[in-house]
């Protein structure tokens, strides 16, 4: 044992389920073993409950059911709700898709990449959003403890882990994610909730913009096409679709959600491997050369530099067109959130008393702030637990989350550019912290991997932040910390890997026994 050098390998597993990708791996490694898209195709039961029957992890290019080619009933599903950015299903009242998928993802990751390790044998570190609501954390812990049966678990905030990944404990953390961009001030390892700023423009919005541009470009090349660029499965030669007897089958029809996901995948490819999105560092948009991108049907598109810069500008820029676009995204997000809140309030009205009493037990105010009392009654049997958690949890969850979603709507959502979000987040904290918070700014998340050079985004951001804060405090310097391009997208996972392999982290785990004793509310006390 490397005594006190810091690490002690206890075989912990670190997992992060993001809106775009899921990362699972051993704590102490320098990259996750398993990295797969979170957007999956699911087949639901036909009945009213619409429980998930089957999950397909790789549906973009291949037929989902290779034997029967019966793809028509599959649709995409994501454990993360894009509006709130949480593992939360506002639409379903019966099963909770997020938690069903969580179970499936873990099984998938463990079986494919972790040498068939048993979930019951390894402590499990789950990474969550820093603005996650207490009720969802409780539900996650319950799912891990009762359905997955992990021996010990911990739920850590991604912003804090990003800080750790860059070797800091106090910093303002920028996370440019898929479903949105979040800025969180972190003070000595604790995320400051009052400073969190969130914008709905993330990589997803960027890809949608690129998709629109690609469609427009495609139309100039192929005037006959009326539905934009076509994904791979639509252009695959017909003779590939043959049944086991050798008879060719008609080209399968897929649901719109799958079609859209496949088209978005093309936009992502264009961004990552083709034309690429880039920060306009030289301000010579019209002289930069265009780049070509080949579509699956062989069409070669010349993506002009304006389009590439526009995509990056969506998050960073100040130009009127981008500001308008951002406002539009914000309005979309707001209206969706309002709908969710209204719906849960509507649900509230047709409650019966029994449910209410149970609600007080589990997602109470006290539980949410981590001041819960010891669980008085004996833990229920396995069957009862499953029944209670599965049948009623979603309504309760909706109700318990409403307050936090309202906060998100009123307070945290913004459409301002990234640099102002950073300053705003730091200025919402105590005066005495601000210099330290702005002194270190950590940049991470997949959206920060923009070109044209590795340091383009950090440098651009630092200049903007400094020009903003120097209006007030001319002496302050901003240090922008970010790992190399290959590690930016998994920065929070890396932080989790560091944390999970620390020797003195051992006392922080929530053990099975503690869960039995205190109930799921212990997560809000032990993982602040």
């Amino acid at each position, binding site marked *: *044992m490397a*005594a*006190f050098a810091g690490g*002690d*390998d*206890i*075989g912990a597993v670190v997992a992060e389920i993001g809106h775009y990708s899921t990362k699972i791996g051993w704590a102490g490694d320098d990259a996750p073993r398993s990295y797969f898209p979170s957007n999956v195709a699911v087949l639901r039961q036909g009945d009213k409950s619409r429980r998930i029957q089957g999950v397909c992890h790789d549906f973009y290019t291949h037929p989902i059911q290779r034997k029967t080619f019966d793809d028509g009933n599959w649709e995409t599903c994501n454990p993360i709700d894009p509006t709130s950015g949480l593992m939360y299903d506002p639409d379903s009242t019966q099963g909770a898709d997020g938690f069903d998928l969580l179970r499936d993802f873990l099984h998938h990751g463990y079986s494919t990449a972790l040498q068939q390790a048993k979930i019951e*044998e390894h*402590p499990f570190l789950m990474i969550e959003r820093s603005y996650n609501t207490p009720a969802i954390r409780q539900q996650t812990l319950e799912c891990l403890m009762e359905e997955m049966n992990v*021996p*010990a678990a911990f739920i850590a905030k991604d912003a804090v882990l990003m800080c750790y990944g860059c070797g800091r404990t106090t910093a303002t953390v920028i996370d440019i994610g898929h479903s949105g961009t979040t800025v969180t001030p972190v*003070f*000595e390892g*604790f995320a*400051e*909730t*009052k400073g969190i700023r969130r914008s709905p423009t993330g990589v997803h919005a960027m890809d949608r913009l690129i998709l629109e541009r690609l469609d427009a470009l495609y139309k100039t090349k192929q005037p006959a096409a009326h539905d934009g660029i076509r994904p791979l499965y639509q252009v695959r030669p017909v003779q590939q679709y043959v049944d086991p007897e050798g008879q060719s089958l008609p080209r399968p029809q897929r649901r719109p959600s799958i079609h859209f996901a496949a088209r978005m995948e093309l936009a992502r490819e264009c961004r990552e491997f083709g034309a690429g999105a880039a920060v306009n560092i030289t301000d010579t948009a019209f002289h930069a050369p265009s780049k070509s991108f080949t579509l699956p049907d062989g069409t070669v598109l010349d993506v002009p530099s304006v389009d590439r810069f526009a995509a990056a500008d969506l998050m960073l820029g100040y130009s009127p067109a981008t500001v308008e676009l951002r406002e539009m995204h914000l309005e979309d997000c707001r209206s969706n959130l309002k709908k969710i809140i209204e719906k849960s309030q509507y649900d509230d009205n047709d409650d019966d008393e029994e449910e209410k009493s149970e609600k007080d037990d589990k997602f109470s*105010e006290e539980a949410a*702030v*981590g*001041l819960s009392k010891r669980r008085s009654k004996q833990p229920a049997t396995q069957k009862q637990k499953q029944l209670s958690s599965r049948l009623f949890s979603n309504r309760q969850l909706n109700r318990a989350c409403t307050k936090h979603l309202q906060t998100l709507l009123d307070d945290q959502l913004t459409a301002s550019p990234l640099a102002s979000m950073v300053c705003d987040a730091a200025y919402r*904290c*105590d*005066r*005495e*912290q601000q210099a330290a918070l702005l002194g270190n700014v950590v940049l991470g998340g997949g959206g920060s991997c923009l070109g044209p050079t590795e340091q383009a985004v950090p440098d651009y951001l630092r200049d903007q932040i400094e020009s903003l804060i120097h209006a*007030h405090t001319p002496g302050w310097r901003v240090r922008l910390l970010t790992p190399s391009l290959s590690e930016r997208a998994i920065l929070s996972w890396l932080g989790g890997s560091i944390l999970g392999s620390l*020797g*003195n982290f*051992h*006392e922080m*785990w929530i*053990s*099975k*026994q*503690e869960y039995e*004793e205190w109930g799921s509310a212990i997560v809000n*006390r032990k993982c*602040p």
Partner: protein
Amino acid sequence: MTDIAEILGVKSAPQPIGNNKPLLPKPHSDLTGSATELPTTVPTFVRIGNRQINPHKPARKWTWAPFSSSSRPDGLLLNHWVRANVEYPDYPYARFDIHLDPVQYTIEEYKAWLTSEDWSQSETDTLMEYARIFELRWPVIHDRWCAVCPPRPVEDLQHRFYTVAAKLLQRRVSHEAALETKALEAVAADSNAEDPKLLLETAAARSLASSDPQHQPLMQHLGTGTSNKVFDLAYEKERRAHWEALWNRTKEEEAEELALRNELKQVETQLRKLKKRGAHVVAANGTAASRAATPIPAPEVAVQQVDQAMATTAPTPVPGVPYLQSARLVLPATGGETGISKALVARMEALLAEMNVPSTVIATKRACDLMDTVRRDALTWLLLEKQVIQREGVLRARRLKLAKMGGNIRVVDEETLLGIAPPPAPRPKPVTKAPAAPAATAAAAAPGKAKAPVSKTATGSKPAAKKPAATASSSSTTAASTGAPTASTATSSIDAKTKKPAAKRKRKSEDAPPALPNAAPSSGDVASTINTKPKKKAKPGTTKETSSVSTSVAPKAPPAAAAPAVTTQKENSPKKE
């Protein structure tokens, strides 16, 4: 293809010594050639850093073994890699499990001492819990607080937390002191002896028990990070207000401050330069000796000086040598003992030029005489002007000094101050603080008095000082650690120790009159002690000295008073021992 071994005439590859088994399995048995049959060269020793590793020895075994840690109450069993056959007494990282102790109180304690109009008990409970969980990181506590309870400013949270902790600690200290008093009194009654040390200690404990809690000596509880002194809310609010004001400054204000700072810096460098040159700054506000160093000459001297200077350069007619009137037009002599400075001559020329006096005239006797007179007058005037400026400076400095001394004396006539008039008869020194003076002198005399017996009876005081500490340690379970070293060290250190409280007393008594009305506490005992000696402060140690103990033993009181304080603190935090 020919094998290289055949070319070289080697039959077969040499076998490794001692072990005929191939060290590595052949990766591809279908490959032919000597490369696969060559021995793997295993070095006999490998150095890694300072360690030598013998690769032929089998490696030490590691096992994937379950472990539990003493830092976890639930005994969670996880696995990790450890050396096989090694016993670990505890998880090595368990020693890093350090947390704050919670500030705890019972419901009765809360009702008796801690009730507040602004704070309910549940809010207070929440605050205490958060302070423990977040280990006094106030920004974080405030952040979580605002999510749960009605928002309050962070300094209010701090104030409540530290006030509750301080009140609890004060009550507990008083309580402990009362218990100790009782125990000591019982001992005194038993032994029935007039042991002065025992009496002294009893008195110290009694005064600590009965005094107003706010006058207790500072005691810190390291386990909870609190002390028995109340958080200064007003100061904290003011500090934050200043911070806010600083933040909200406009750019203009900032620029103005910057300019002022630069100006101040310039003035300071100027002053430093002047000081380096010594001279007038020292002279202006300095002593008689330094004033004597650069005397300001009398006005008549100026006239003489000018005459001499003019005389040295003016040519005297010598028989047989041609005498030119124009020779009289040269400038007066500069430098030397009697000469005047070049700068003065330059100023004179400037003055004459200003008044349109031509520098060259037709050198007749009359013109030269006139010229001489004009120049002489100009020089004299300049010298006198300089003297006036100097004397004004002296006058200003003296006035300042006078104001500093607090004098409201009528200013004497300027001539006296300037030193022109003959010095007046010496007068008595001004009396500034007539009412406070006796107290101050009495207090100033106190340290000397207190010190004298100790230093004289050096050998006698040594065991005497040791005794209270020893009894203190016997009366309580833990040793009084601060008392013991003081007693055992030499008399010089006792002197050093005793000087401190005496000096403090002096300072206190100086500002005693204004502090007295505030210091009158509600507690009857303390009030009575104060009434008997109104000049002294109501600090526990000092009141005891003045009221019940003679001055010769007074210096030894502080260690004895500190003894119960230390014991109570230790009993409050047994965990950290």
